[in-house]
């Protein structure tokens, strides 16, 4: 026993219990602010909650929220918009980010500058990005329509037309997140083993063969991680859409997160919102489980 050597009193007690109190705050925070709310979501999803003043009154109405789900007129467009948003934005971001990472990897100078510039969009408040593009998309004086005017074309209603609004929002998401994919893949490109590439070159492989059979397989783990990150985070997209279109016109650019916001805070349907939240969480977690298998696959294979 080292007891005779150790400090006594408070310090001794802190030392003896370090293991527990070092983890306790994080566990406590997660329990109170994530586990409890998620459990509460399940309880809310079978209830109707009404406010009288600041007090909430709950009644047990399991059928009601499911009925609301099946009669929600804008849910199907929110789901399909979200799927289109995630699929298109993430695909384009991956392709552009990869191309850019490979190109910059070939540069002999200016890599640092490139990297510095590419972190800017990731760190700027998404709300500021929303206002930025709101100005540029403006029908009457936005820069896009001014440029169209210069070459003699009619102004386009980027955010105000039901057929274009979602695509305009997707374009902003691409602008925002290509740099993120670039950063992850560029780090991987910089870490590529030079000997392997040289060996391929010595063996006479041309550039495309080198890319297809050497570089891409080596980058696959990083590509999978970037893809997983982006797919999951694209589901969370809220800020820019809220600012740019608010989901409109109609429900043409309404995403699931925006729909949840409306149900919770504009229509005050806490019970139905909770049911939608539970379903969203289950969906996202299934996606995550599938993604983890994918990552494990690329690392072992």
């Amino acid at each position, binding site marked *: 026993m080292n007891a005779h050597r150790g400090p006594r009193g408070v310090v001794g007690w802190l030392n003896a219990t370090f293991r527990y109190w070092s983890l306790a705050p994080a566990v406590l925070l997660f329990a109170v602010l*994530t586990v409890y709310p998620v459990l*509460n979501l399940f309880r809310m999803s079978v209830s109707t909650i009404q406010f009288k003043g600041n007090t909430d009154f709950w009644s047990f109405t399991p059928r009601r929220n499911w009925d609301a789900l099946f009669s929600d007129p804008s849910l199907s467009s929110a789901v399909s918009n979200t799927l289109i948003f995630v699929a298109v934005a993430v695909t384009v971001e991956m392709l552009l980010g990869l191309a850019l990472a490979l190109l910059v990897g*070939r540069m002999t100078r200016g890599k640092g500058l490139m990297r510095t510039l590419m*972190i800017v969009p990731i760190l700027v408040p998404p709300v500021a990005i929303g206002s*930025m593009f709101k100005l540029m998309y403006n029908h009457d004086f936005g820069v896009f329509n001014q440029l169209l005017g210069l070459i003699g074309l009619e102004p386009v209603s980027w955010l105000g037309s039901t057929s274009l609004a979602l695509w305009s929002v997707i374009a902003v998401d691409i602008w925002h997140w290509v740099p993120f994919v670039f950063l992850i893949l560029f780090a991987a490109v910089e870490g590529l083993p030079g000997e392997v590439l040289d060996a391929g070159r010595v*063996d006479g492989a041309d550039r495309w063969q080198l890319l297809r059979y050497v570089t891409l397989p080596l980058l696959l783990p990083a590509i999978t991680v970037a893809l997983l990150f982006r797919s999951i985070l694209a589901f969370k997209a809220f800020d820019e859409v809220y*600012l740019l279109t608010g989901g409109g016109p109609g429900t043409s650019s309404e995403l699931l997160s925006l729909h949840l916001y409306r149900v919770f805070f504009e229509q005050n349907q806490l019970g139905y919102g909770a049911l939608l939240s539970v379903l969203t969480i289950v969906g996202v977690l299934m996606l995550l489980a599938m993604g983890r298998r994918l990552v494990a696959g690329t690392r072992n294979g």
Partner: protein
Amino acid sequence: MSVRVADAARRPAHRHERPFLAAARARWLGFLLIALALVIVVAPFVWILQSSFKTQIAILSGAWIFTPTLDNYADVLLSRRSDFVHGLLTSVLVATASTAIVLVVATLAAYSLHRMRWSRVVVAAFLTWMLAFHVIPVITLVGPWYLAFKALGLYDTRMALVLTHVTINLPMAVWLMLSFFKSLPPEIEEAALVDGCHPLSAFWKVTLPLVRPGLIATGVLSFIFSWNEFTIALNLTSQANATVPVIVSKFSNDYEVLHAQMAAASILATLPALLLMFVGQRFIIAGLTLGSVK
């Protein structure tokens, strides 16, 4: 793969006929694309910056040539109907407090998970829940948070924002600190312990100074993410405790969009992140790419 490469070697290599020219062309193409990427990233910022110096009339008429004015900044910062300065104070307080708490809680938790011989089940359960929470859209939890904070009398307080911002940044912070702890050679700390150092002082005097880059990366990123956070701040506060992003959004979602003020407010909202970025760039890049490449 080797078959294909051998194939290629046998084929007449047209593409290698004039390697010098091909290399020069590839280089030009590279530069061109990079220049294009730079313009695409920077141009929107230039556009909103010049808009912020225009009068509302100059913006509405789409003028390219104009007399710059500081009126928009004065209006956003000084006018009585603007809550911007109040929001700035709220944002600074919330981001600072939540970052400080996140750093302490996450560093301790990561160290504990890394060094304190928790059973695998505990570690796996903790990390899995953390990851799961991180991927859940935050709006799904804002509903129950709203109910809980209302019941506790914390709705529309800075305390509610601090607590929720700590929670949403904790997974990233624990993850980052864990990677930094893992990158340390275990011998250093073991030597300290053998020399009679107590666990607490080994942590405080030996390990913590070694992960200072990790602390900086985690701190800078937590501060920026708290500063930028919008979904929670929009729904858990009213005007009295609105943060900067919420106020910026108000300029655009009012009945009449105040374009010039919105531009100025957006620029002001962006400045802290930009400043921090230039100070801690190296650490931010480490933070953003760590764990994803390994």
